[in-house]
């Protein structure tokens, strides 16, 4: 049954909303277009404006015990680091997490909106929504805003009746199911470490350490990633934050400074 979701309805439905009392397919499909003289130029500008903003590293992977989700915490505007303490792992509900990459406001808002939709689904259907369903809801919304400048590269990770679930959803409207994903400017570095160290049957501690190291290595090489590496675990009883370590400190943990022997010592030459 359709609850009154007019407050949640996206401003730009892909199809013209069908008249309630007339058979659903009478309206011709149409969508709203921004009011500019040069629509193509506007699109290009919008894309250029947000392109550098996916400066981040987030990753998630499914393993035997559940899902591991990790992210850095740096926000950058071009070359300026605007914050080192951004929460990039968003808690949609006690058993589902979303990661943030791209426009911070876009990610935060739409994840909150997804949380509302998930809760309404629970109330209406007396059962939790599946990770599949939640990711589909988000993907459909983002698709309806396609081309309008939203920048969202997110992963929806959770545990439902069918076990652990992980989906990648982006603002182009794409949605992929998978076992491992990394999103953001630091993702190539994170993938390198993740793919090398991944085994399906790891323990929770091993998987957490792998996730932490992958984020650390990405922050080491990518200028747009840094701050704190947060690691979350999603298991059958919901998510739990495992750690949040400053990557600067992690660096010296992994590569402690070895005092090196100096070959020649500068000797004070006394007065002749």
């Amino acid at each position, binding site marked *: 049954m359709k609850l009154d979701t007019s407050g949640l309805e996206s401003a730009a439905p892909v199809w013209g909303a069908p008249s*309630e009392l007339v058979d659903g397919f009478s309206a011709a499909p149409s969508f709203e277009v921004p009011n500019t003289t040069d629509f193509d130029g506007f699109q290009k500008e919008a894309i250029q404006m947000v392109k550098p903003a996916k400066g981040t590293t987030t990753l998630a992977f499914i393993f035997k015990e559940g899902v591991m989700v990790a992210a850095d915490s740096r926000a950058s505007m071009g070359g300026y680091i605007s914050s080192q303490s951004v929460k990039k792992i968003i808690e949609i509900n006690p058993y589902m997490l979303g990661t943030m990459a791209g426009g911070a406001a876009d990610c935060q808002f739409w994840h909150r909106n997804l949380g509302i939709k998930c809760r309404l689904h629970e109330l209406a*259907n007396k059962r939790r929504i599946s990770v*599949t*369903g939640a990711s*589909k809801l988000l993907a459909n919304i983002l698709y309806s805003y396609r081309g309008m400048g939203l920048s969202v590269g997110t992963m929806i990770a959770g545990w439902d009746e069918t076990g652990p679930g992980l989906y990648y959803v982006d603002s182009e409207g794409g949605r992929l199911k998978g076992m491992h994903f990394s999103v953001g400017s630091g993702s190539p570095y994170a993938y390198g470490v993740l793919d090398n160290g991944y085994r399906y049957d790891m323990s929770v501690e091993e998987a957490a350490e792998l996730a932490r190291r992958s984020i650390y290595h990405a922050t080491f090489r990518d200028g747009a990633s840094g701050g704190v590496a947060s690691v979350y675990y999603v298991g059958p009883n919901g998510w739990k934050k495992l750690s949040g370590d400053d990557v600067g400190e992690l660096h010296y943990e992994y590569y402690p400074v070895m005092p090196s022997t100096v070959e020649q010592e500068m000797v004070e030459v006394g007065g002749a």
Partner: protein
Amino acid sequence: MARYDRAITVFSPDGHLFQVEYALEAVRKGNAAVGVRGTDIVVLGVEKKSAAKLQDSRSVRKIVSLDDHVALACAGLKADARILINRARIECQSHRLTVEDPVTVEYITRYIAGLQQKYTQSGGVRPFGLSTLIVGFDPYTGVPSLYQTDPSGTFSAWKANATGRNSNSMREFLEKNYKETSGQETVKLAIRALLEVVESGGKNIEVAVMTKEHGLRQLEETEIDAIVAEIEAEKAAAEAAKNAPAVPKET
């Protein structure tokens, strides 16, 4: 009273929506329909008015499927039923598309009831003149359910229910004779209830069963005849046992 029954959106002073009540009357004039929920099976049966000789009876199916795991039978205005069924079928597929999950029976019942309610609170329309019996299995838990909706838009779950013509007698019969059954016993119970008000015979009833594994299956006329024969035999045996001389008590 005449002043308050024209427009659907007008309450009468004593709190009635006359158009809705008249719609219920239309239901009461419709063909009898019964639904019974078993532990592993759900059964729907409807009365079939004798088909005209030249009519192709296959084109007037009264029990329809909404999805692989949900079926519906109704009593009342058949043309209204067609519209409601089409909207429900679309909603079943739309639900599959948006959450990648088949609907639960409760969800689609709520949707149909919501639709029926909308037409009791809008201008320029009249309510749907039908009550529906919706059966199906929960796609995850496999639990069978039976729901009923009516023109006012209310719905509730039932173990067994009847609607349409003489539904009160059928419901009384079901209340007296209902017990948890499975498989063929459930089918028999449904047919026995229908036979209370319908002329006996396979060509006057349409019966469909749904199981988790095989989905919806319409019973053939010959099958129905066979079950009817069984029921009549049981009835005759029960009568004979009642009339037999009492066994003398041992002293």
